[in-house]
């Protein structure tokens, strides 16, 4: 089974001071995310798997693949908990 992450259609975000600011228009909540988190959210313009998102961090930072995967995984889980992302299971 493939797990893909989808951005909530009512998220709006922008960069400020090297971080990201995210508005969730449905819940009317305001979030700040790290620069790498913002890059992951930007990459989620279309649904993506964890494996497809890890290079977003690897391309920007000097970290091991294992560390990048753990970082992206943690970020995605926090986003799902906050209803910023949804999970789609395919196959």
């Amino acid at each position: 089974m493939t797990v893909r992450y989808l951005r909530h259609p009512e998220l709006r975000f922008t960069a400020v001071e090297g971080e990201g600011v995210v508005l969730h228009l449905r819940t009317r909540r305001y979030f700040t995310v790290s620069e790498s988190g913002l890059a992951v959210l930007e990459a989620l313009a279309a649904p993506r798997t964890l494996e497809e998102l890890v290079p977003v961090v690897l391309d920007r930072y000097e970290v091991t693949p294992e560390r990048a995967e753990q970082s992206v995984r943690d970020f995605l889980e926090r986003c799902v908990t906050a209803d910023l992302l949804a999970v789609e299971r395919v196959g």
Partner: protein
Amino acid sequence: MLRAWIDRARLDPPIPVWIEVRLEEPPTLTDDPRPVFRQPGVVVRADPSGGGVHLTWETAPAVAEVHATQPKACVTLSPSAAGRLDECTDTFLVTVLIFLLRRTGWHHIHAATAVDPAGRGWLLAGDGQAGKSTTAALLATQGWRVGTDDTAFLTSLNERITAVAYRAPIALRPPGYRLLGRLGGTLLPRRRKLGYWPEELGGRFAARVVPDVILFTSVGIGPTTATPLGARESLAQLVRWSAWVMLEPDLAQQHLELLAALAHQAKSYRVTLGRDLFARPARLTELIA
């Protein structure tokens, strides 16, 4: 009377806005699935999928439907709402106007605007008890140009974020006009305030202000203090005082980017306003020097 209200506001949006007004009992809204956003006296229903906006006045029967993308609105006023037109313009129709102007690229912020004698633009944001009006009046007595004490619209002009003032009298509660110590003003009986035009106080009107300084104000019991804020903290505050950013996904991104650009453009401070400012108004500019 509606024409007088629009003329007095002195707004000049980049494209015309249209308000069609019908005088009849408005239809009762049933089963509207749009999420509700409330503010004092006005209920706003906005479609998350980009539909129009429906507004209801709670004081007397009146409704408005704002077109999904164009700056057009159809307003239906009952005879009893039309009989309270002053109140209706101050609360309900100004909210309709906010949604119309949003469709022209002008985004509302709950803030006062002013220009100091050195030509720097100031924006003071905060709630109804944050001292914006009293400070705006005080600054007018010092010869500053004042745009508004409460309602401004942010837009991008020549790559600078500009705050356009909705012109209305600076409305002071009794503590405010007592501190100001000025005679005159116009009684605003429904609001239990005195209204002053900047010109009455020795200032001038500033239709447009390019903010160089943003103050997020509150009123304290000690002396006036100012704490610098970074752009990220400033943006969080701007979102708070420009709350319609949370509505209408198709317009929210532009609105958010304007706020972010403003947070970068201006130096921001959290300011606690004290009574010492009335003895020494220059303290405000000294604190942010």
